[in-house]
């Protein structure tokens, strides 16, 4: 028997449930027992920011690819390869869509021609497109590694320790705290819609529903974010992030920090020097 085709609402509900699970799992993996999870959040924050900077500045595909490979090794050792691999697909899709024209439009030696259209893909174009895609994948991987191997509260506290403005940290914290409430509302909204739906939606109705639900969620999110903030204020929140765990740098943390610094300087040097 063929599996039943899910309609738009069912698919949306499924995705919402999946997103909630993923958001919850992100904090679980941060408290896990992988390689990166054992290091001080400040070390990881500084280290990954350095590597992201080196990857973004790199003009050599091989260097960017090497940074990406380091991220891959970290992901395997920290047991977060699956969520990161999922991220790669999204990054590849969006960056690919943006850089694809560069493979054709950049002048250079034609490597092959696209079937039907007959457009030539040049060596320079392909190199530019590959560089951009690898850079996007590498930076996204490093950022995801930081988030997935660090408990959210610790990450926010590390940002404050490194003098990131309280307003920025509060907005970041509120966004995360609000995800679950918003996803719950979206789920209720789509379930209520499904309860009143007869038959399946055509393309126009789906688009209409997507737009109207986005508008309703936006307006609800504004109202609810105010309520969440009031609830935080009522319990003494004044913009600072506190956690029960005190940050203390061990010898292992210092070694890791040194490794990050060496890697960043090497990658930056090799990636930018002629």
């Amino acid at each position, binding site marked *: 028997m063929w599996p039943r085709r899910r309609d738009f609402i069912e698919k949306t509900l499924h995705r919402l449930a999946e997103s*909630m699970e993923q958001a*919850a799992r992100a*904090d679980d993996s941060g408290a896990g027992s992988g390689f990166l999870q054992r290091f001080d959040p400040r070390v990881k924050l500084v280290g990954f920011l350095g590597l992201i900077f080196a990857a973004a500045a790199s003009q050599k595909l091989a260097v960017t690819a090497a940074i990406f490979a380091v991220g891959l090794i970290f992901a395997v050792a920290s047991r977060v390869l699956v969520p990161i691999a999922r991220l790669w697909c999204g990054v590849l899709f969006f960056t690919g869509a943006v850089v694809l024209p560069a493979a054709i439009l950049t002048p250079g030696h034609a490597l092959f021609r696209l079937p039907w259209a007959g457009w030539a893909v040049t060596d320079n174009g392909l190199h530019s497109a590959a560089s951009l895609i690898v850079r996007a994948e590498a930076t996204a991987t490093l950022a995801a590694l930081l988030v997935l191997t660090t*408990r*959210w*509260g610790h990450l926010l506290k590390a940002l404050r320790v490194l003098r990131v403005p309280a307003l920025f940290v509060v907005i970041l914290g509120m966004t995360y*705290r*609000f995800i*679950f*409430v918003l996803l*719950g509302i979206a789920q209720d909204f789509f379930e209520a819609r499904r309860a009143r739906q007869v038959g399946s939606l055509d393309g126009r109705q789906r688009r209409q529903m997507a737009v109207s639900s986005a508008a309703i969620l936006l307006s609800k999110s504004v109202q*609810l974010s105010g*309520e*969440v903030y*009031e*609830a*935080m*204020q*009522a*319990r*003494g*929140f*004044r913009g*600072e992030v*506190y*956690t*029960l765990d*005190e940050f203390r740098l061990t010898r292992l943390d210092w070694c890791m920090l040194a490794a990050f610094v060496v890697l960043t300087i090497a990658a930056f040097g090799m990636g930018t020097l002629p």
Partner: protein
Amino acid sequence: MNPTPAFALADATFRYPESTALDGLNLSIAPGECVAVLGANGSGKSTLLRVLAGLCFPERGRVEFFGEPLTEAALAHGAFARNFRRRVGVVFQNPDVQLFNATVFDEVAFGPLQMGWPKAQILERVHGALADLGIGELKDRPPHRLSGGEKKRVALASVLVLDPDVLLLDEPTAALDPKSQGQIVDFLFGCIGRKTIVTTTHSLEIAQEIADRALVLENGRLAASGPTAEIVADTPLLERTHLLHVHRHRHASGAVHSHPHRHL
């Protein structure tokens, strides 16, 4: 001699863009008193609670907390704000807006961490609050995956961990099953006399069970204030302020008709 009231409102007026939530409200709540705020939807109950919690401020009039003005400027002052937030606990009607941490334990520890208490004290108080509410086994669970009754108890624990002198409760039993309602009422019973409690409710039964005094709000004004038993017995007042059920029901004789009645 009358002690300084826990809260005193004089001519407090608060307006939303499309309506007036509090209209020149005057009232006083004594320390240790348990007050039920009754009123139909939109009568200003939740706004009153927000004003008492220092979450919004009347555009006219005055609010005092133990004789000190409760203003935006006062709450911008670190020492006053910390003392006020420690002494006044707020339980919101929708626990989802109140539970925003990754685990129940983190949720309950949030308030004490904001107070800057030592770690050992925080751990002791959090475990104590979880045990008091009977939710010790939930401590590692994400709050958003709990049932409605569990969420409400976590919300209460997250407030009680600070051992506040004042509890402001917005519809504490709303949308709960009878068992969960009973647990919350039992818990509030234990707080009577030890804490100042201000609770909004639609339930005359719960108001009568726990509150010494009832305030009835109507369009942001105080329609009545007095001993709960007297207020609950005042059928014309309750009818006028839409606090009595009017719906069709069946009597033992089999007759079906509609008239105001109470579920007590």
